[in-house]
């Protein structure tokens, strides 16, 4: 397994906010983490990134990348992994880009942080932009000059340029138009299929998860209540909460 989470517990001042007994994502696979606001999905993502502690949380348990334990790893070694091998994209791409720098400067700074030369960074950034179907010309623009969908694709391009093996995607399409969402989902499928990326995809929308994810774990109030192959969970949900989430999805044919 590429990414393995075991007995992960995140708590604030003794109050547990996320508890994941077991969740694994292999290369070439998209695993969904479903649930409402406050269910602990984002905290799980932050804990995997080693960022939950910086938010004041206590984290116990195990997160392994290719067998290597990440929990408790010293900051410098974790920083070398975070971004480079494990990348993350978030709900609001406009908040992920500093508005006063050109997009290309932000991308190339991140690449150089991980040891690339300026020339390599430029080359990789351009190629990555093309693979997310964006013109490299957009690198010369400021974040405010790009749409939300374009910025989200730049964020994905950054993960590609760094050759990330794992992508953590926290509600990456919830702030986008459905048409743009469809494009981003298509792109994530391609990353899985042609690059063998391991993707952990967080969403409150089971329809999006049904379309995208091979397996799914459903979280409620900090706990995983059900998990399994997406088709099975959707067709025969075992937990009432999963049924509730399914019933809430708006359907065109209704």
């Amino acid at each position, binding site marked *: 397994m590429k990414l393995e989470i075991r007995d992960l517990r995140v708590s604030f001042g003794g109050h547990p906010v996320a508890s994941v007994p077991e969740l694994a994502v292999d290369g070439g696979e998209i695993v969904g983490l479903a649930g409402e606001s406050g269910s602990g999905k984002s905290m799980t993502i932050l804990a995997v990134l080693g960022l939950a502690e910086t938010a004041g949380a206590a984290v116990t348990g195990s997160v392994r990348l290719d067998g290597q334990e990440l929990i408790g790893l010293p900051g410098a070694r974790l920083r070398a992994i975070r971004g480079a091998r494990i990348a993350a994209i978030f709900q609001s791409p406009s908040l992920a880009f500093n508005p006063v720098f050109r997009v290309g400067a932000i991308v190339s700074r991140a690449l150089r942080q991980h040891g690339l030369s300026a020339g390599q960074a430029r080359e990789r950034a351009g190629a990555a932009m093309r693979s997310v179907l964006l013109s490299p010309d957009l690198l010369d623009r400021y974040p405010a000059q790009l749409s939300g969908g374009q910025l989200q694709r730049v964020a994905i391009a950054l993960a590609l340029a760094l050759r990330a093996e794992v992508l953590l995607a926290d509600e990456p399409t919830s702030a986008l*138009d459905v*048409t743009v969402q469809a494009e981003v989902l298509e792109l994530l499928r391609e990353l899985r299929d042609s690059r063998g990326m391991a993707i952990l995809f967080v969403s409150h*929308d089971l329809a999006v998860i049904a379309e995208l994810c091979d397996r799914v774990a459903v979280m409620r109030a900090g706990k995983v209540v059900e998990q399994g192959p997406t088709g099975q969970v959707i067709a025969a949900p075992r937990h009432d909460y999963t049924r*509730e989430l*399914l019933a809430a999805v708006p359907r*065109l*044919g*209704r």
Partner: protein
Amino acid sequence: MADDILLDVRDLRVNFGPVRAVDGVSLAISRGPFGIALVGESGSGKTTVGRAVLRLVPAAGGTIAFDGQDVLGLRGPRLRAYRRAVQIVFQDADNSLDPRMRIGATIGEVLAAHGLAGHGLAGQGLAGKGTAGRGAVGDRVAALLAEAALDPALASRYPHQLSGGQRQRVAIARALAVGPRLLVLDEPTSALDVTAQARILALVGRLRDERQLAYLLITHNLAIIPGLCEQMVVLYLGRVAEAGPTGELLARPAHPYTLALRSAVPEVEAAARRSRIILPGDTPHAAVPPPGCPFHPRCPLAVEICRATVPQPRTVAPGRQVACHRGDEVLSGLRPPGAPAQLAGEP
């Protein structure tokens, strides 16, 4: 027929400097209970239409009539009366509720601003007891919160103590406070979880019947429209691409843009999934509209005429208008072969 129309928008134009944000939009809203959806992506002009209806942005052309009365010329007390009759609920309740005011004060302020805090509420369609004073306002606030399926005890809370779904319900309660006949709902659920969204939509459906409300539902998601809106209008770059009865329009779109919007809706059941039409790039900016049909650069069915001539809205079936040169073919089943490949951001 015309007596059934509550709000009649004709050939509405809104300019921001040289930008034609809304470029000749017409739509008619029947008396409630009635729902009409205004659909489109970011940049389509749908929010601007809603704001123009409320006179929050000036119209550069066209007419808006409410109950047969010209809206664009209203001033003073008559404009205030109109704004009691037409209320808006914004997408982001986080920004439309004052963080320093308790929920009760936020709603009470609206009652006071419209002189509804004391007598004479019965005529406004509110469940008032006819007594003046603080207690009466408190009762009204409690009744409004209950009507929006909120615990009246929330009146003493601040917005940050509420969930996103609860805040949006407060925004709806506040809009209801003045007894409106028409609600403009501007993406009321797109900042919410699907579960909170389902509850808000159920609330809208209930209020529609209980209050005989008419509403304009602005959204980018076609899936929330069936069951709430009889009619829908699809906007693209400030113009109407297609309009008609919801059921027929969703079952048999006549515009390729509607096809694409429909195909973009994620579906739980594999059987419900349609072959997806991925539109290359984003909506072009209204400041530099493409020549010909505004949709042609992203349209998988574009032909020569689309690049040169702007399609005018025409009737393709009873009650159905479409602005597409190939509207008849699309209505009869013409479908795009596959998504064209083009890099977004390239000329």
